[in-house]
């Protein structure tokens, strides 16, 4: 009796986790498509990717039926995603900023002025080491 109730609780909990993870994954993808600027797109994608992936992986852990090998593999994947997803998002942002991609500024996000501390960033060692060949991020 107790085991049956526990099983159905685990079932519904994993159902909820799958639904929440799917919601966050779809939301992140929509933000990646619809937002006006690279940096806002990066925010939408980077924040929701970590949470959506972790929720779906937790749902899979609950469905693994106590198989310790599967749970260990899923936990390793989750730990790795938890570390690497913010790191890769940060490095993309840093590469875009050093490469000369300006964010949209202002209340209406319409104009793309030079940010205040832009020149200081331009003379950073990363920008100089490429022999001044940074011609900007846009193709």
């Amino acid at each position: 009796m107790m085991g049956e109730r526990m099983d159905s609780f685990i079932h519904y909990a994993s159902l909820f986790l799958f639904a929440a993870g799917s919601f966050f994954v779809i939301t992140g993808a929509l933000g990646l498509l619809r937002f006006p600027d690279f940096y806002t797109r990066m925010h939408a994608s980077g924040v929701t990717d970590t949470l959506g992936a972790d929720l779906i992986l937790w749902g899979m852990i609950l469905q693994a039926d106590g198989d310790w090998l599967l749970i260990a593999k899923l936990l390793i994947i989750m730990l790795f995603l938890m570390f690497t997803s913010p790191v890769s998002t940060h490095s993309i942002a840093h590469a875009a900023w050093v490469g000369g991609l300006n964010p949209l500024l202002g209340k209406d996000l319409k104009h793309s002025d030079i940010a205040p501390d832009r020149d200081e960033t331009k003379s950073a060692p990363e920008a100089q080491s490429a022999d001044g060949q940074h011609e900007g991020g846009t193709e």
Partner: protein
Amino acid sequence: MIMYVAATIAVIVAIVIALARAILGPSLYDRVLAGNAVGTKTILLLGLMGFLTGRPEFLDIALLYALMNFIATIAILKFFGYRTMSPQMRDISSRLRNGHNDGGADG
């Protein structure tokens, strides 16, 4: 079973939307970001397909893909940052091209 199908469909839809951003993306970094998002969702898709078809060995492939996706993103960013795969090799080759071949391998 139905929740695996729903989550798989959600992940596939997200991959299609991210691919649209990768094709549309006005700048290089938009494409890199979309590629990174597609890689993350591919890991989820591999795990979900493994659970859906009852073959959890797919998780090994998902683990390998998680490792490769991170390194691929960093390598692409490094390539487009320095315009070469190895800055030391670029320095040596440019020195050779300019005729300053004094054998000084300071890198």
